Structure formats: structure tokens, C-alpha cells
């Protein structure tokens, strides 16, 4: 892959310009250690060294609430329009890029594509940004620590501690023609990285590799989960879990939703979908008050099973990218990786 160089000043100029033609969202600080994707204001306000946003970028293609259609009293049905401008997400980390790729697969599955996802996705451009892992990241274990594709542009910041230096340079890779178009003729004039700079990029990658503190061997997970469905661990987790659903809502690949109707005063109605979470009590409840997963232990086991086994069997790979959000967000400290580690360690037959 060819790697181009862009200076900090050029990057700022480019983002200033881009925000005039598209809806540009960037990682912004929103309190101590908290970040969100927010509309671009000024370059100085965005945080290029953030670790993870609270909500993953899925909200731009699969919003927490979305009107599917409005129905007038006459029966006339209309589908709300999207904003006129395309949406560019700047600063997406590899785990989240991989998360969107998983969503792409899922929302086009079974020859029954999700129209609402597809139309938002067709209008989304993704600009990636390199990162260094913290103590909750295990994307490397999930093979999601780099993004081979799934971005239009990708920026490497190999000197993230140093944001203010005037000479600061970012490395840029083009993923698609859309990326080139976004750069608006810059790509043809930006210089290519010199061999020693590529060497520095490689060193950065190695430094990043050794910075991971969490590790998980995904190859044993399916067996560990399938063979230990009756493990007392699930009951313990069921007692610890509050069924708050935060781990699912914050997960870049969790996609469950409800559909409900609302009414307006004029006799019209709307059909709306909202995020749901499989940890909620009513998730598998059907009419007649029969609940297929009445216990929290069953629901938490179902979540783990689905993400590491069920999804992989249906779609070829697990639906976890190792972003660490569920670990960071869980109010009772349930730790995705530790759960699997203990399942595998305690329960798989060990050689004597």
C-alpha cells in the first residue's frame, strides 16, 4: 500500500474545508476520559489521541431510534428522508471499522437486506485513525487490531503523545476512490513517505503490538462455551448482572431492536424501531406471559454464546471486535475476557 504524508496544518485545513460540504463527525472530549463522536467545530477541539467513544459508530448507520414510516389518517405512507449531506466519520479506530464491516454483513444477510441500514451506510464515509490500546482493549485477540479494508482513508499518527509540534506529520492510506474524492485533489500532490519514515511506521506498529495487556485465545472459545452450558459460572454471572443492557447498547456489533407504533393527535401513526438488549427481562417474552429466557443467567449466557459461537456459525466470524466497551461500561465489573478465560482454564480438560 502507498503511504502519503500530510502535515498537521494541512489536515486542519482539509477538515475545515470538508466540514463545509459534508456532515463531519469527529471524536470530541465529553468529560474526563470520556469521548463521543460529535459534529466538527474546530480542529483544536477534537481529540486525536482518544481511546474509545462511549457509543460506537454504529449509531450513525443504526440510530438508537429510527422512524421506519409515518402513516397519515388517509393511509398514505411516507418514509422520512435522510439529511441532504453525506456523513463523514473522522477518527474511527480499527476495532470500530471492523465493527462496521460486521454490521455490513449482518444487515445484508439472508437475502433480506435491511433497507434503513443500507441507505445510511451508502451515505457514510469512514476515515480511520490509528490508536494505542489501553487495559480494556483485546482487539488483537479478535483479529480486529488492524483494518485491511472497510475505510475510505486511514490516518496513522505514529507520535500520538505529541500533538502540538508544528512539524507533526500524519501518514495517510487511501482505501477507496471515495477517499481520493474526499481529499479533493490533495492525494495527487501529497508527498509519499520516505523509506526511513516507513521504518518508523513499522516500529510504531511493533510498539503497539506489545502494548496489549489483555489476551484471549479465541480458538477455544466455541468449544468452551458449547461444552459448559451447565457451568455454575453462568449462575454466578446471573446473580452479578443487573440486566441493565449497557454492555449491548455500547457494543459496536450488537444490533437487536424493538419495533413499536406511536400515534399522533391527528389520527396518524408512526412505526419506530429502538435499540433493545438481550439482557432485558422481556427480550424473549411472548404473549401469554411465556418467557423463553426468564433468568438473568440464561440471558447473559445467551449473549456470550451468540457473540462468540452463534454469530460465528451463522456468519463466519465472532461478532466481537475486542473494543473493550462492555468491560469498561459494566457497572458490576463483569469482564468479557475474564469470563472466557475462566471457562477455558477451569473447565477444559488439562493434560496431566
Amino acid at each position, binding site marked *: 500500500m502507498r503511504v502519503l504524508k500530510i502535515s498537521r496544518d494541512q489536515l486542519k485545513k482539509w477538515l475545515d474545508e470538508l466540514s463545509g460540504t459534508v456532515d463531519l463527525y469527529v471524536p470530541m472530549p465529553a468529560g474526563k476520559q470520556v469521548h463521543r463522536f460529535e459534529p466538527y467545530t474546530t480542529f483544536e477541539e477534537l481529540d486525536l489521541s482518544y481511546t474509545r467513544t462511549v457509543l460506537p459508530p454504529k449509531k450513525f448507520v443504526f440510530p438508537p431510534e429510527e422512524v421506519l414510516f409515518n*402513516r397519515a389518517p388517509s393511509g398514505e405512507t411516507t418514509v422520512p428522508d435522510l439529511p441532504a449531506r453525506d456523513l463523514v466519520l473522522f477518527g474511527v479506530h480499527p476495532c470500530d471499522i471492523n465493527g462496521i464491516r460486521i454490521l455490513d454483513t449482518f444487515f445484508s444477510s439472508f437475502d433480506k437486506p435491511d433497507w434503513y441500514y443500507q441507505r445510511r451506510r451508502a451515505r457514510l464515509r469512514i476515515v480511520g485513525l490509528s490508536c494505542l490500546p489501553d487495559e480494556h482493549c483485546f482487539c488483537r485477540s479478535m483479529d480486529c487490531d488492524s483494518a485491511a479494508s472497510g475505510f475510505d482513508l486511514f490516518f496513522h499518527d505514529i507520535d500520538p503523545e505529541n500533538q502540538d509540534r508544528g512539524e507533526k506529520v500524519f501518514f495517510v492510506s487511501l482505501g477507496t476512490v471515495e477517499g481520493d474524492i474526499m481529499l479533493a485533489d490533495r492525494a495527487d500532490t501529497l508527498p509519499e513517505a520516505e523509506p526511513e519514515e516507513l521504518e518508523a511506521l513499522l516500529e510504531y506498529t511493533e510498539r503497539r503490538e506489545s502494548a496489549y495487556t489483555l489476551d484471549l485465545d479465541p480458538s477455544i472459545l466455541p468449544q468452551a462455551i458449547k461444552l459448559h452450558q451447565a457451568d455454575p459460572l453462568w449462575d454466578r454471572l446471573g446473580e452479578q448482572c443487573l440486566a441493565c443492557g449497557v454492555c449491548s447498547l455500547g457494543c459496536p456489533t450488537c444490533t437487536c431492536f424493538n419495533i413499536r407504533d406511536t400515534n399522533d393527535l391527528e389520527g396518524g401513526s408512526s412505526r419506530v424501531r429502538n435499540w433493545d438488549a438481550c439482557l432485558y427481562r422481556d427480550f424473549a417474552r411472548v404473549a401469554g406471559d411465556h418467557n423463553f429466557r426468564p433468568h438473568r443467567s440464561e440471558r447473559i449466557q445467551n449473549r456470550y454464546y451468540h457473540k462468540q459461537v452463534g454469530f460465528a456459525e451463522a456468519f463466519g466470524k465472532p461478532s466481537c471486535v475486542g473494543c473493550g466497551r462492555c468491560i469498561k461500561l459494566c457497572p458490576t465489573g463483569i469482564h468479557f475476557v475474564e469470563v472466557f478465560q475462566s471457562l477455558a482454564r477451569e473447565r477444559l480438560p488439562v493434560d496431566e
Partner: protein
Amino acid sequence: MNNLYLTADWTILEIREIIPGHFFVSLSPSGGGGVPEYSPGQFFQISVHGIGEAPVSVSSSPTRPGTLEMCIRKVGRLTAAIAGLRAGNRVGIRGPFGNGFPLERMRGNDLVLLAGGLGIVPLRSLVNYAVDLPGEFGQVTVLYGAGTDAQLLFIDDLLGLSRDINIQLIVQEITGAGPYEERFGDRTGFVTDLIPGSVTRPTRTFAAMCGPPVFYRYAVSALLAEGLSKRLVYMSLERRMECGIGKCGHCGVGYRYTCVDGPIFNYWDAFNMPELIEMREGEPWIS
């Protein structure tokens, strides 16, 4: 690309309370254009706009084109709204969804169909399908049970077919409410009680069943005891459904979605996915 969440307007041609709380509904698309192709075992999503939407099995057979028939039990908000509709009213429909019964595989074989309560609704579609295609299937046996004789659905329909199919009924309690008392004698019990002796060619018999969640494990073990091979046993399952197209996640079981991979599942699916049907606490029921 098709927006699979949009509903089409359909008109109710007939709606009738056949037993208390259970409404027979016949429908066709309001704009003409005919009922889309469907297969026994599939379901449609039916909407009353402003109230909501629910999955409902087809109860008619594609061999009788022109209208779509359903039977809806009033249990909650949406089904109550449907119960309040009249002929000429419109509802929203999308579908058909789901896999349907494996008709190609079933052809040429005997069928044993087991229904508990409302479970007769999807099986009626298959019964009528088999009856309308004489020679395509072997002997068709229907074993149908309900709480009381007053709760049996489509009973005149089914008894009218006694020349073509072998139909046996059982209820837990005989109230004398229906004109069928002589059919029961003094015998009361569960539909699974009808299974012993019902299968004459176990290697050439497909079983299909639909009933309340507790019913499957008993029905499956009774069928296996009759010598039926596991791969010949099918079940129609219910789960909470919102989307019908494998997206909302509610109907997920193991690695399958009931709305696209089901609602008709084979015995082996249940074997591999313990969550699929309810099992006895701590007891391996699989033989």
C-alpha cells in the same frame, strides 16, 4: 432494493369468532394483485397501524388461491384490536416469511401431524394442502388435543375430511359443550397419549407438530419411541418476533433465527441447540 418493513394494505373479507377468543380471518390484498406465493408453515406479519404488528401463521393452503386465512387468538393489545375489526376493514400485511414445511422431502411419505391447542392453525394449512393433492402423500394422520372440547378449533372442517385423513381428538376435560362427545368416549388426556400405535411405517413417516412450549419434548420422545427416525421429526416453534427478516434478534436461538431458519425446525436442530425446546430439568431426554 425492497424495503421489507413496509406493509401492504389488505382487506378483511370475513372475520368470525369461531370459539370464544379465537377469530378466523380471511383476507386479500386491497389493491387486487392476488395473494403472494406462500407455503404451509410460513407466516405473515399483520399490522393494525397505530397499535402494532404480530407474526401470524397461515392457516389456508396455497392449493386454494385467492384468499389468505388466519386464526388469531385474542391475547393482548394487537390481537384485541384485530378482534374488533369487521369485514371491509383494512390491515397491513408483509410476508410471507419463514421456511415452511419441507414439502419436497415429505412427498410420497405418510404424515403424522400433532397439534396442541392453537397449534392446529399452521397444521391446517398442511392438512388441506395434502388433501388437495391426492396421491402426493401417503396416509395423513392428525392427532389433535386441547384443554376442553369447547376449545377445539376448525373441528367441523377437520371432521369433514375424515374420508381422506385419519383424525383423532383428545381433550383434558370433556364439558359436553360441543357436539363431539361421542368422539371421546370416557377418554381424556394429552395429545401425546394418541401417539402410541399411530405410526404404521416409521421409516416412511414424517411427523410435524405445533403446540405450547411444554408439549414438544413429550411429543418428540413419544414419536421416537414409535421408531421414527430423528430426521423425520419436524416442529413449528414460536418465539418473540419483531422484524421477521433476521434482523431484530428477538427470535434468535443458538445460531439460528426462528423467523428465517424456522419456524419449522428439524429434530436435529433441537438436538444441537438445547435452548430450542424445553427439556426436563436436568434429565437428558434424548435417546
